[in-house]
């Protein structure tokens, strides 16, 4: 408790300067035009819009209250252009004698492909000019939806194609960022972390691409306001509902069918709701006598309510469930039923509140996020239950934004509860019953100073985990130095802590779920230090080139200790350390008939456990992804992805032995099974990986709706990329075979928008 009190006092001291900063920094400029951008439907402020003066280099992004500040504006009539999805761009004339302006944006009624308007700033370009934050990529909903995919558009599959990111195989949405493990990636929906964002054992992500507004992906050097994980932040924002009338879409793919509705509420505000479910089980039951005992379903909803000038309350909910229920034994007079059951799902509810207090924007959030899984011979023969729950509350203030100084500070608390139970009620035995309870108190201050060609962004974050007796100070810094208006040197460095870990063996090729544990007296808080240095260049407003080199260290990671005693707490893991370095290159065209990106990653990672150094399973030297969209044949929109990956490591067998089964009744071995003898961990490498995916999408209007049939072809040249190898040393000579990753796989579906 003492530590916690001390931490709170220190946190307040950390945040306090940001409260007094406005008075010092509010100096008038020669001609500074300030404005606010509001949603025409509900007068709510719109964040992240690009505002610029036509014919001038003055540009800015709107802050959380929709405010922007344009400096160095000539004392003459000007045209201010405001642009950003999902709104239609707007231009307003500002007379010479007026320095403030309010701009109302109208939402696009039908979402279109990115609009190309020459002379207007693009969001990434504005970010380049305004913000010192390297290693950030934004994907729009349209880019996610139109990227080649398997069965359905998938936000995490799209993220896997960005620089710095490695997907170990086609079967897992788990990804590794700049040498980190997959449990080091924070995935959050409207600011609320989600524990295991996948369906079908990690094959698909939980997010309905149609409900997403925008996705920001940070691969390193996060600012002080972001933390919780060591390697990446994937921030997925749900779009608000349409404010003018009821709209919707229906989507039938080979995987699932889904329905999305959004529109205005009876009072002020909007809603969005989407429901998705696989239907194979229903089809199988309807047309055959067979039973497919698996389905997944999810639902997401968002309600957005204005609460006054510049304020709103937003409620986001998500519920998802995967269920496998295979009856093995029917119940009878003298016996209990036995079903093979596997079910898991995430649930979250997040409440965001934004308002202005004493002229300072305040944003507060309270949320609960939970994950649970049950596996076993149910109901009583054997069962494994795992649950993870997070309660969080945080508040951030942004007393300065849009000018030379931006300042943000905040505090928060995250309370994690994880439970593991393995038992057999039938046998009257509990094999494991373990609880983890971890609380993370945090405070941060994040400041950016923009003198001339320099953008300097120091920050500081403090985290306190009382259960682990841990208090950590995380300095962060980012800089951008413009060599000319279209070329800048960028860099960032910082220290990052992570209080929860996955106890899953990260060397396994498939991520079913992460099994989370929290820091306490036995489990350490993991740490990583990042250093990033690069350049970013633009040609016009379309072409972007970023090159970033990075170096990371990892301390206090964990890997499962297979020799652990389930009755002993604290021996369930072995400590791991490591490091990674590499270079990421992104060449991206944001607009035009042919648009997309080329992402190249050079990576090098290693891990150390119990004195053994080895490359982790994601240690890939070269990764190249070419992704573009262009007009295609037969009036289609064509999407192409070609991926190349140099060989990934795996652990080869060097022999095998017969593991015998002891019969205690007869005191003899009476059976056996084959055990592999492993060579050096990850001492061998699979062949290189390559895959070409194609997507075709058509549009037509019929019966008052827009129809979009599509055809996706995964692995178009049917390359057999190795997924797993199996060895047989009972053969003479010994042999190896294996299983490939995704084969040639055409899929199709249709979307209807009304």
């Amino acid at each position: 408790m003492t530590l916690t009190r001390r931490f709170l006092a220190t946190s307040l001291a950390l945040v306090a300067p940001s409260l007094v900063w406005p008075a010092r920094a509010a100096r008038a400029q020669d001609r500074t035009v300030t404005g606010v951008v509001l949603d025409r439907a509900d007068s709510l402020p719109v964040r992240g819009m690009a505002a610029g003066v036509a014919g001038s280099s003055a540009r800015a992004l709107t802050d959380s209250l929709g405010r922007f500040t344009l400096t160095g504006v000539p004392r003459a009539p000007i045209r201010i252009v405001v642009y950003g999805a999902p709104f239609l761009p707007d231009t307003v004339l500002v007379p010479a004698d007026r320095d403030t302006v309010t701009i109302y944006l109208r939402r696009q009624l039908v979402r279109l492909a990115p609009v190309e308007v020459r002379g207007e700033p693009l969001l990434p370009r504005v970010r380049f000019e305004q913000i010192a934050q390297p290693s950030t990529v934004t994907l729009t909903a349209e880019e996610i939806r139109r990227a080649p995919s398997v069965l359905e558009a998938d936000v995490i599959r799209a993220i896997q194609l960005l620089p710095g990111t490695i997907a170990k195989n086609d079967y897992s949405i788990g990804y590794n960022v700049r040498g980190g493990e997959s449990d080091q990636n924070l995935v959050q929906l409207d600011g609320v972390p989600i524990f295991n964002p996948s369906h079908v054992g990690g094959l698909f992500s939980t997010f309905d691409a149609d409900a997403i507004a925008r996705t920001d992906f940070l691969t390193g050097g996060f600012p002080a306001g972001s933390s919780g994980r060591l390697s990446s932040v994937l921030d997925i924002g749900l779009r608000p509902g349409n404010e003018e009338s009821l709209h919707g879409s229906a989507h039938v793919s080979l995987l699932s069918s889904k329905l999305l509705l959004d529109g205005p509420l009876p009072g002020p505000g909007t809603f969005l709701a989407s429901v998705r479910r696989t239907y194979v089980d229903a089809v199988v039951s309807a047309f055959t006598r067979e039973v497919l005992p698996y389905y997944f379903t999810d639902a997401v909803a968002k309600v957005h309510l204005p609460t006054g000038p510049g304020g709103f309350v937003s409620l986001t909910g998500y519920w998802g469930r995967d269920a496998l229920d295979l009856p093995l034994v029917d119940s009878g007079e003298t016996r209990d039923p036995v079903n093979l059951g596997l079910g898991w799902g995430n649930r979250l509810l997040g409440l965001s509140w934004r308002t202005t207090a004493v002229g300072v924007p305040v944003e507060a959030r309270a949320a609960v996020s939970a994950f649970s899984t049950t596996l076993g011979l149910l109901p009583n023969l054997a069962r494994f239950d795992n649950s993870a729950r997070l309660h969080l509350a945080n508040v951030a203030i942004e007393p300065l934004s849009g000018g030379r100084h931006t300042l943000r500070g905040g505090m928060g608390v995250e309370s994690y509860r994880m439970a593991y139970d393995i038992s057999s009620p039938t046998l009257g035995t509990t094999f494991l019953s373990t609880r983890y309870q971890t609380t993370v108190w945090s405070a941060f201050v994040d400041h950016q100073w923009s003198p001339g060609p320099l953008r300097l962004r120091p920050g500081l974050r403090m985290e306190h985990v009382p259960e682990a007796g841990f208090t950590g100070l995380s300095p962060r810094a980012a800089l951008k130095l413009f060599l000319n208006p279209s070329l800048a040197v960028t860099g960032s460095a910082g220290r990052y802590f992570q209080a929860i870990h996955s106890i899953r063996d990260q060397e396994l090729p498939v991520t079913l779920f992460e099994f989370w544990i929290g820091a306490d007296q036995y489990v350490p808080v993991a740490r990583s230090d990042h250093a990033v240095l690069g350049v970013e260049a633009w040609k016009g407003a379309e072409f972007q080139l970023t090159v970033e080199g990075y170096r990371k260290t990892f301390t206090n990671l964990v890997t499962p200790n297979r020799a652990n005693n389930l009755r002993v707490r604290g021996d369930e893991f072995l400590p791991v350390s490591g490091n990674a370095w590499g270079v990421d290159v992104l060449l991206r065209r944001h607009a035009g008939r042919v648009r997309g990106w080329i992402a190249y990653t050079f990576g090098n990672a290693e891990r150390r456990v119990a004195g053994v150094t080895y490359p982790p399973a994601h240690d890939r030297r070269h990764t190249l992804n070419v992704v573009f969209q262009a007009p295609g044949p037969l009036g289609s929109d064509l999407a192409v992805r070609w991926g190349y990956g140099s060989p990934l490591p795996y652990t080869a067998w060097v022999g095998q032995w017969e593991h015998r089964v002891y019969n205690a009744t007869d005191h003899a071995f009476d059976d056996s099974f084959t055990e592999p003898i492993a060579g050096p961990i990850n001492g061998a490498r699979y062949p290189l990986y390559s895959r070409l995916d194609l997507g075709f999408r058509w549009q037509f209007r019929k019966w008052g709706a827009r129809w979009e049939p599509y055809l996706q072809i995964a692995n178009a040249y049917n390359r057999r990329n190795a997924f797993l190898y199996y060895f047989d040393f009972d053969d003479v000579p010994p042999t190896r075979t294996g299983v490939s990753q995704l084969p040639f796989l055409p899929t199709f579906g249709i979307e209807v928008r009304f």
Partner: protein
Amino acid sequence: MRPQLCVSLVVLPGSLLALAGCELTEVTVAPGERMVVVQSVVSRTQSRQFAVIEYSSTGEQIGRTPIGGAVVTIEHLGPGPCTGRVDTLTETRPAPPAFDIKGVYRGSICPPEPGARLSLRVETPAGELVRGSTTVPGASRRDITVGDQAAVASYDTLLFRRERDTIRINVSPVSARGLQVEARHDRSFDASFFAFVDTLGMTVAGNLVNPFEGSDGETVFRAGRYYWITVALADTNYYDFLRSRSDPFTGRGFLNHLEGGIGVFGSVEAESHILRVVAAVDDPREGRYRVTGQTSAGAVDVTLEAYLDDLQEGAFSAFVEGAWLGFSLRTSGDGFLGKSSGPPGLSSETLAFQFQSSSGDTLGPVVFTLHGTRSTSSEPFTLLLSGLSGTGREVLRDTLTAQQISGPGSGPSGPAR
């Protein structure tokens, strides 16, 4: 290398199976690295111990590669009266040798006390040296109850009413890491039930079903059978040997406690009891049958106490007790009691039953089969008896008479059960 076509087309909506990968072409790899594999579990309650010693498979030889000519010793590190003694296991060849048993070493050792440490040393003719040590487990108290009966001594027989009884096991250890519980029908090799826990306590319900056998599961304890239930306390080495195995993806997982080799040198303290499993009798086919007759090998006068299986229609098990070919028989067997496809209107059922027994000094272990058509009116009916030796030779063929003498199908004239 033969090119293989591997194309998955999704022809049905949502055919997720199409996502499955294809099998990769088999290729030859370099021979592996040879390791000495030693597997030995010392049982404190057995007088003779053994060790299996072989090389791991490297792809240079088909089949297992036993190691002959090794020097295998077990040293008693104490505490206890055996402290300091070194026992030797020697390569043995039981008669008659049924298969290549090279690499199996057996021998008597001084009985260790619970908590005593044993050290194994194996030196192969090639000079490889493997070492391991174990702390012998033991219990100060074992509480094993079946229903309301407590087990008193090893190999005592306990009545087990499968619908309502539960086996409760609780062990107070002197030294132990885990518990292995197994139930075997007539000591056959396949365990009907096999579980290990680290709680030193377990309950086993009589109506337990193995969901992975049969189309609708398989009854673990079938009425009409004897089961050997063995409770073995395990040391850390054997418990780790039981609970761990390497996964094929990372090659990690098996917990090896040997130096210079792979495998196990562990120890157990085992105790066995016999369960006589019964159930309520409510089907006309269930109950007791008396089987009598004179055969060329001797007289037969036994009873079959038959119980139908809960899950498999017509399957039954029965206790066989009485005079059999000149000696007293007490065993159990399995059979089939179902309606035959006889002429319409004829009330008859097939009875087929098989059990294994030694039938005196001259015949050795024999599998006996009884086959006939059961009378549904509790009248005597004929059973054909045949006996097959272990080599498949028919050693006996004769005719016996059977009559249901108790049970719902025995009729009003039948003797009360």
